[in-house]
């Protein structure tokens, strides 16, 4: 699953560490999320979307795979 976390993070000038702190997860998890190598739970996706002032639909690109 692709996502636009990196793009939104840059928009709000947040580092991976800052975003990780805001949603109480490891920076490593943000790295894997941005690479599209980890699918977050609905709760985490919601938390990230809230911090980045957007919606889950905007942030995550659901493809058929």
């Amino acid at each position, binding site marked *: 699953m692709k996502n636009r976390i990196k793009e939104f993070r840059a928009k709000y000038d947040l580092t991976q560490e800052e975003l990780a702190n805001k949603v109480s997860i*490891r920076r490593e998890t943000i790295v894997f999320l941005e690479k599209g*190598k980890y699918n977050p739970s609905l709760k985490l996706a919601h938390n990230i979307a809230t911090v980045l002032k957007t919606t889950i639909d905007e942030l995550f690109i659901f493809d058929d795979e």
Partner: protein
Amino acid sequence: MKLRKDKDILRFLGIGLVVVLLGATMLIFQTHSKAVSFLGGGLILGGLIMFVMALYAATKPKTDLIVDERVVRINEKAGYNAGWIVLLSVTVLFWADKIWALNIELEGMYWTTLFVGTYSWLLLRWYYNKRSEI
């Protein structure tokens, strides 16, 4: 190498040190009882492990130690598969004992189980963390 010196790290280091000192005291003042000497040795070992763990944690940023949902998933998956590996190894040992009459004693069995379980869990955790897709 930069070490964190926050309250949690210092507390853990302190407890480790106290445990080591307690173990050393038991060893120094107790010369007759083997059980107390064994306990003292165990406390020293435990305290040293705590000390090393605290030092290791001090080298990592605080956010690298959070147990988030990804870590929970990795632990669960590694634990599940380690459980199957333990079951498989016990089954293999059981049948090998039956077929070739190896005379495996219960003590040997539980050391094997502990060894296989612990190391397979640690290895699988490392593997799933590297592989990233959980």
